[in-house]
């Protein structure tokens, strides 16, 4: 029943929210921006969830866990499939250096001060405290390229600039995912060795599933069968990892990357099929993330303010370093950091994954902070992007493009 409720609700909202007339009416409250980023569904989830209106009780939240795993697997597979080894090999080392420096600097600026605070808050459990801080750092280091894409479509920035910003934003996903694995090593197991074992298990099973899926898909021609196979593959990847209680996201990324490397044209087919379901699945995931957010804890709001401020500082500084390091390689705007403020959906996936796997009161706070920060950063992103590229402040662009 819970799955049915989520499905029907998200389906209805998705259809209503995609309607041009509704977007036009909702322009004042930046409805289009919230719809395009999926955060509208998160906010609806927060309001309907057990902590506010209570229309979606805790039991129902637990009942949707398999769906959540499947949604995380879809996101992970898409990230993994996006790995294009031939293209990545062609990129100059200076680019990796710049992107890595930007992401790691943001990560460090956020994680280091918060590690101290969170370790104290975790009653001296340094493993959980560091794990939580690392998680916040990982989510802070991520950024989404969607604002640059929307600005390009509206004709406000050039193609080269948009591609350069998108490249930086996309490549920092890998830093975030690497850090997630580290955070899980610290937080998921009883000890470091067990945590490392579980992370390795997630990667090994992801690779095994990827190799098998590539082989299975290679023999499939008919569209209906490919579709069925894709559904089965997603469920298998999500299922194996959630059954073994290891990271679905890490497993799915490893699986997707394996298919991308050995699957040839199969990986393109799989990618195309997944893209068909991506939108409703992502919206459903955002809703499920929203219902789990606890907005009643005052510490969440304190930590949220600190997180947003420190992340903005980190991005600004990281952007400056990246601009220097990638000079002559990328066409980046004067204040790159401000163009990377949008947090994006992957950070929410990472936080959701952490909540599923790490059973500790600190985990809920980290999750709440990341989820709410995504909304705050999305609200800031449009205004700051204009400042990044030296354009007059305006939020009309997203409404125009999305509508």
């Amino acid at each position, binding site marked *: 029943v819970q799955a049915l409720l989520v*499905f029907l609700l998200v389906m209805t909202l998705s259809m209503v929210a995609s309607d041009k007339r509704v977007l036009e009416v909702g322009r004042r409250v930046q409805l289009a921006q919230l719809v395009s980023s999926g955060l509208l569904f998160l906010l609806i989830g927060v309001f309907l969830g057990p902590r506010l209106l209570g229309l979606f009780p805790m039991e129902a939240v637990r009942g949707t866990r398999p769906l959540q795993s499947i949604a995380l697997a879809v996101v992970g597979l898409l990230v993994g499939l996006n790995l294009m080894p031939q293209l990545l090999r062609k990129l100059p080392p200076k680019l990796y250096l710049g992107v890595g420096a930007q992401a790691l600097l943001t990560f460090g600026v956020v994680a280091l001060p918060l590690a101290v605070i969170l370790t104290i808050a975790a009653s001296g459990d340094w493993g959980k405290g560091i794990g939580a801080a690392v998680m916040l750092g990982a989510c802070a280091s991520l950024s989404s390229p969607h604002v640059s894409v929307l600005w390009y479509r509206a004709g406000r920035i050039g193609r080269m600039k948009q591609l350069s910003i998108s490249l930086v934003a996309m490549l920092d996903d890998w830093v975030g995912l690497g850090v997630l694995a580290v955070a899980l090593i610290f937080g998921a197991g009883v000890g470091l060795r067990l945590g490392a074992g579980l992370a390795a298990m997630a990667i090994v099973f992801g690779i095994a599933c990827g190799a098998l899926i590539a082989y299975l898909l290679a023999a499939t021609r008919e569209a209906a069968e490919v*579709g069925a196979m894709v559904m089965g593959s997603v*469920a298998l990847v999500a299922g194996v990892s959630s059954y*073994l209680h290891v990271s679905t996201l890490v497993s799915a990324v490893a699986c997707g990357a394996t298919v991308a490397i050995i699957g040839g044209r199969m990986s393109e087919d799989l990618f195309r099929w997944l893209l068909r379901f991506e939108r409703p699945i992502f919206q459903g995931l955002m809703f499920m993330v929203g219902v789990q957010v606890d907005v009643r804890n005052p510490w969440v709001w304190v930590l949220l303010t600190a997180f947003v401020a420190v992340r903005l500082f980190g991005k600004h500084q990281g952007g400056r370093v990246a601009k220097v390091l990638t000079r002559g390689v990328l066409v980046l705007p004067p204040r790159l950091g401000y163009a990377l403020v949008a947090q994006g959906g992957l950070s929410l996936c990472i936080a959701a994954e952490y909540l599923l796997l790490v059973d500790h009161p600190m985990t809920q706070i980290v999750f709440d902070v990341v989820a709410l920060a995504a909304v705050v950063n999305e609200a800031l992103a449009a205004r700051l992007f204009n400042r990044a590229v030296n354009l007059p402040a305006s939020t009309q662009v997203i409404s125009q493009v999305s509508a």
Partner: protein
Amino acid sequence: VKAAAIRLALLLGLLALVTGARFAREAPGRGVAFSAGALLLCGLFAGKVASGVRLPRLTGYLLIGILIGPYGVGFLPAEGVAGLGLVKGLAVSLIAMAAGTELRWAVLQRVGTRVAVLSAGICLGVFVVCWGSLLLLRPLLPFMEGMTLTQSIAVGALLASVLVSFSPTVTIAILQETSAKGPFSEFLMAVVIVGDLWVMILFAAAAAFTKASLGGELDLASLAGGIGWELFGSLGVGAGLGILSLIYLRRIRSERALFLIGLCFLMAEGGVRLHLSPLLLALAAAALIANADQREAERLNVNIERVGLPIFALFFAAAGAGLHLHAVAEVGLVAVLLVGIRMLAIRVASRALSPREPDSLRRLLWMGLISQAGVTFGLASLVARNFPTFGASAEVLLVAVVTLHELVGPLLTRKALTEAGEVDPHAVAATGSH
């Protein structure tokens, strides 16, 4: 076949690895998504292997489900397979919608009365034979020990009403798989569907009398009300949903496949909660669409075919994984006897009562009526839940009978369709070559 078998073997290897790794974990998850993925992928390849050796794909789905399920080698956890109830409901509604789009007014006018009379006759004949047999087999049925004659008669009637039931899901799935078309297929599908309506009435009456014989009260008004609500309520609500669907399909048009899945979910879950039959709801909704707008019905069929393959593969593989093989071992002799008696009764009744034209009906109809599946499982679990004194033991017997029918039924249905000459050879060749 070889390529599909190799892929299936590799999948089984991965499942074995996961099962091995599971024991290294202190608290593994419930395994719902794992069971879904494993059953779907293994089902698809097992279906291809089955098709390659001239068996129905459905048999392949069932057999692989039995093999990897909790009662087979145990790759899948029982909790995970049980968690797939939502898919089962979705599949039943989807299958019923596929059948509903074939229920045109002209067809109902042509064969409606004959089908109603024939199915009533067959149901009554099989019911009487099974009832009598159960009373004769009393010494072999431990749960009937210590019952008075009246109680035995009532309980026998209750179990006989369950034994009569058919499987619309299996029949329609085989019809879809073979793309069978013609008077025999049309008649078979109608008899199976209408037959199950008679079974619903028989079961409700038998359950009320059994309750009364065990010391409860016989409330005829509530009995009639319950049956009436389930039958006519389902048809009415289903027709209402059909009208709403038609408005959506004509006016909004977007995301038809998503809408279809949402509608099937709604009928499956909402129907159970409102004591309506999801099967009838879906049939009525689809029949209304088919009779009101031919073009929309065709589009609906295209969407059903598009989403049907994974759902059917998963549904039947999950049904296989849920088959209690140990039940067959426990009550094997009585179960086999009942299967034989039921088969004989169906054969005699359908030969005696079927119309002369087409000739295939007299010869082959009985083979299409042997399958039992979800409906019968549902009735068996109702017996267990409502009659705690003997229900659990009776359920074991019923489940064993259904298990045997589920394995034999699809083979016989396909044989009947092939011998009737209504199977599309291109469809069979295509499923075999995949």
